[in-house]
């Protein structure tokens, strides 16, 4: 068919406005050459795959013209995102073609942190890593190795470390710096992991409650879509946040809470629901345990008390809880994700959210917590260690590595439930050799220096190691510290695992190569197999396709069958009839009071616990996300950098007036330990933040000169987070107990205390100075 004729058939504007179709459908009949000449991405070859610009992993369609990826769109077959993808997903092309990409394996020739390397072969690099793993095991034992993992590639290496038997086989920043506390709280209330991608049915909620949420600023496409859908259908929105966030901009009620006092609000609301008979009696009576204990425990917490502690108007607090009660049980209480805020209260704060959810009966019904599906795929083991690489580590005939005499999880009774060991314990063990030495780190897909609190300490720990290797796409500041650097292929150049959202609708999606790996980069799958081979592992599968087919077989699919569509969907039942409601908890009920917590001497019901107020002259440092960046991972992407090159510091307008600051002024930040920002940051003056806090978006201020686009742009929040406390139940590291004041033109500007602090709230005491 000639192009002219084709245009006639295309139906023009009317069809355009009426339908969404894959390009390939209406380009049928064009020769490849004709198709490639069409403007924009039209006529491109389409390869369905899965995004990896963040860990939510939306199904995508990559468009290729003349061998180059020119466009990425959402996969229209996806029941969650459809054709939609976020800015980062759209910009994945510029990760693939990033000029600063790691191109070949390298060996350090300068000092650690200098980033001076020599190019080496894959064989040499893998031999060296295998040699060091064996040496470390021989000298210090299996547990002397720790693996820091994040992202799709990390799983392959995690399998090696897990199989070798170290208890530190995983240290996901996603867990011990982020979602861990919330996850534990919901696990012990509902019986499943209701957070992560939170199992809250926002699309069908009649009222939504958010705590310090970055919804809209931290983009998970399906979640934002559901949130907006819910609001468009008329859901009332209550946002509790010291900052006027994107979500607050859409809220019916904004509660600018004093940071660290959320528990007061939650306990007072719980009491209010009970005292005024506003809770879901059917749900509580038939499906919960611990109601009477809760009732008794919260009795003394009224709205007046909460108003004082939280520094909020009582009428607003009351209005908010009345809205939630009126709309029960179709209420979405969203637990958020990053919950490693203050340390001690973090699990209990989220327990209080889960209790509130239960009292509202917002469980298993539209709008509330839902039950996630299990994708119909098989779990298979990629490789096994038949012959341990180091003799004498294991006793004859022993199948499992004995645990260390003193575990790094020792201090945290609930850490046992989760992969790996708490980050702080690993870092301390690396620094001090106690309770046992850690001498080797593997790092894959995570910029640990811009992620773990107190990066100065992290660097000191790295200096103590015998060996550290990094697998990544780009030379982040963490990669600069590696002895051996391995260039991972990007997600557009490789097969990977299978992905599903496990939401109210679900799919199983295949990641497959869109273009071949550039330079000498290799897919993590292949790197890990090669490394495993050198450690005496036997691979159960020799290729990605074989490995994937083994997982897909159960569902009647194969890579060949999925490669055209990229995914298959399956039926999901997120809701439950109340007659058939059961929970996978110890009691089989929704646990308002937690006996398991009490058994370990933690409160069965959350108690008031407030984060210390800023020291005089300082404001609390809050941080968060911007919608075009993922953590500290995407700042070097030229499109994303162009959209948002640097961060600005949000300063309350009254504070700014008192200090004579205006938007655009530059200040150096100095924290409570005397650490200063690497350079001045521009101030953004706004009434949208409390006077006792400032807000600095996370991930900026790259210190890797090898990231030529990102280097030195903006200021790093992580380098100002030098104080942290451990969550006592599972060992997460807190991030929000840091405070800053300003330095302008060489003069210290102390932050005036505009909102008085009541005596119930302790004040932060400086323990050290840099």
């Amino acid at each position, binding site marked *: 068919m000639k192009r002219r004729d084709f245009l006639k058939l295309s139906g023009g504007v009317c069809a355009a406005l009426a*339908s969404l179709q894959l390009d390939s459908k209406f380009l049928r009949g064009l020769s490849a050459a004709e198709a490639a000449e069409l403007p924009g991405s039209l006529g491109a070859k389409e390869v369905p795959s899965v995004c990896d610009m963040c860990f939510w992993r939306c199904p995508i369609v990559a468009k290729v013209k003349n061998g180059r990826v020119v466009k990425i769109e959402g996969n229209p077959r996806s029941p969650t995102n459809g054709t*939609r993808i976020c*800015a980062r997903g759209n910009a994945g092309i510029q990760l693939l073609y990033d000029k600063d990409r790691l191109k070949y394996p390298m060996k350090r020739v300068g000092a650690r942190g200098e980033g001076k390397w020599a190019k080496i072969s894959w064989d040499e690099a893998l031999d060296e890593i295998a040699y060091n793993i064996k040496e470390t095991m021989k000298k210090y034992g299996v547990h002397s190795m720790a693996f820091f993992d994040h992202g799709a590639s990390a799983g392959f290496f995690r399998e090696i470390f897990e199989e070798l038997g170290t208890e530190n086989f995983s240290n996901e920043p996603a867990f011990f710096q982020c979602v861990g506390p919330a996850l534990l709280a919901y696990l012990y209330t509902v019986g499943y992991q209701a957070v992560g991608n939170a199992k809250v049915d926002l699309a069908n909620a009649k009222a939504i409650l958010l705590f310090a949420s970055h919804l809209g600023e931290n983009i998970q496409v399906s979640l934002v879509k559901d949130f907006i859908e819910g609001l468009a259908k008329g859901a009332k929105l209550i946002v509790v946040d010291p900052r006027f966030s994107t979500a607050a901009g859409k809220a019916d009620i904004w509660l600018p809470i004093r940071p660290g006092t959320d528990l007061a609000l939650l306990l007072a609301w719980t009491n209010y629901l009970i005292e005024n008979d506003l809770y879901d009696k059917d749900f509580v009576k038939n499906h919960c345990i611990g109601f009477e204990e809760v009732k008794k425990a919260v009795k003394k917490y009224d709205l007046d008390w909460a108003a004082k502690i939280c520094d909020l108007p009582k009428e607003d607090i009351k209005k908010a809880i009345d809205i939630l009660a009126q709309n029960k049980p179709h209420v979405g209480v969203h637990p958020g994700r990053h919950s490693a805020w203050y340390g001690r209260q973090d699990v209990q704060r989220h327990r209080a959210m889960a209790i509130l959810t239960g009292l509202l009966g917002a469980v298993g019904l539209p709008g509330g917590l839902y039950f996630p599906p299990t994708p119909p795929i098989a779990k298979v083991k990629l490789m096994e260690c038949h012959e341990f690489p180091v003799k004498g580590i294991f006793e004859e005939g022993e199948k499992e590595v004995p645990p260390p005499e003193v575990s790094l999880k020792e201090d945290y009774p609930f850490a046992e439930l989760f992969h790996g060991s708490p980050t702080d314990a690993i870092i301390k063990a690396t620094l001090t050799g106690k309770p046992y030495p850690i001498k080797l780190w593997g790092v894959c897909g995570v910029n640990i220096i811009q992620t773990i609190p107190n990066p100065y300490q992290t660097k000191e720990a790295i200096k103590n190691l015998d060996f550290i290797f990094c697998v990544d796409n780009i030379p982040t500041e963490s990669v600069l510290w590696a002895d051996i650097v391995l260039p991972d292929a990007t997600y557009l150049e490789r097969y990977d695992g299978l992905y599903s959202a496990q939401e109210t609708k679900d799919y199983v999606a295949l990641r497959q190569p869109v273009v071949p790996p550039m330079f000498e980069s290799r897919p993590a799958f292949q790197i890990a197999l090669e490394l495993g081979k050198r450690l005496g592992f036997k691979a159960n599968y020799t290729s990605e396709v074989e490995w994937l087919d083994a997982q897909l077989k159960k569902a009647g699919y194969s890579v060949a069958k999925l490669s055209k569509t990229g995914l298959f969907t399956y039926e999901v039942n997120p809701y439950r009839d109340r007659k058939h409601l059961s929970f996978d908890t110890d009691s089989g009920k929704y646990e308002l009071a937690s006996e398991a917590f009490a058994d370990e001497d933690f409160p069965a019901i959350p108690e008031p616990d407030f984060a210390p107020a800023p020291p005089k002259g300082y404001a609390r440092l809050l941080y968060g996300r911007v919608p075009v960046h993922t953590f500290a991972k995407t700042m070097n992407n030229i499109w994303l950098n162009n959209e948002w090159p640097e961060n600005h510091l949000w300063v309350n307008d009254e504070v700014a007036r008192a200090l004579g600051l205006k938007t655009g002024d530059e200040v150096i930040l100095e924290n409570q330990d005397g650490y200063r920002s690497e350079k001045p940051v521009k101030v953004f003056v706004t009434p949208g933040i409390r006077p006792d806090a400032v807000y600095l978006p996370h991930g900026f201020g790259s210190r890797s000169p090898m990231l030529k686009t990102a280097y030195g742009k903006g200021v790093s929040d992580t380098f100002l987070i030098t104080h942290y406390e451990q969550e006592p139940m599972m060992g997460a590291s807190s991030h929000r107990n840091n405070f800053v004041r300003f330095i302008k033109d060489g003069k210290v500007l102390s932050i005036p205390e505009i909102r008085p602090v009541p005596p119930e709230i302790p004040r932060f005491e400086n323990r050290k100075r840099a």
Partner: protein
Amino acid sequence: MSQWAMVIDLNRCVGCHACAIACRAEWQVPVGEGYRRNWVKRLGPANTPHGLAFTFYPGLCNHCDHPVCVSVCTADEEEKVFKCPKTGKTKKMKVRATYKDPFTGVVLIDKDRCLGCGACVEACPYKARYLNEELDEPKADKCTFCYERVIRGEVPACVKTCIADARIFGDLGDPNSEVSKLVKAGAKRLVSKEVNIGPNVYWVGKEKDLYLLLQQAPKEKTWENV
């Protein structure tokens, strides 16, 4: 008479910039100061007479009824045959290098004829055009409402990627289209006492959000100095 138009729903928009990047990818817009066809500006959090507000200015070419960029074009007039993408009907008109398409109302640039003088870039009160100097010869560039995609049955790239379904594209010539209904119901445009050249991009949203947005309306007759 057709007039393609867009309505952006600020109640839905979360300011995620997906639109801006999708556009950059689709039309190979290079990275550079002012180089964009499609943008997102953050407005607030700021006080308004209607309360504290935080919203966005997702912007693009307005495909104005009286496009001042067209009238300042320095290329010579030439006769051009236009074709209606819906009916196939044709029409001859004398135009310069940039013109308003008679069948869709879309303002387009004939890249083969653009002299790269930059007059249209300066004239636009919305700064919706840029001069692409990364090419062998500089050419003006801007949003086309993805004309080339739409006539082939696709939707504009920004609409397709919008994670919140905040962008509604359609024809104001069709009274039953969603855009017509929204415009009739009071969607707002960026016009001022000084500058009203008939823009065809509209926004809906809360009063407080529109208050911040409407402050972005141009007040300077930029084209008069070109």
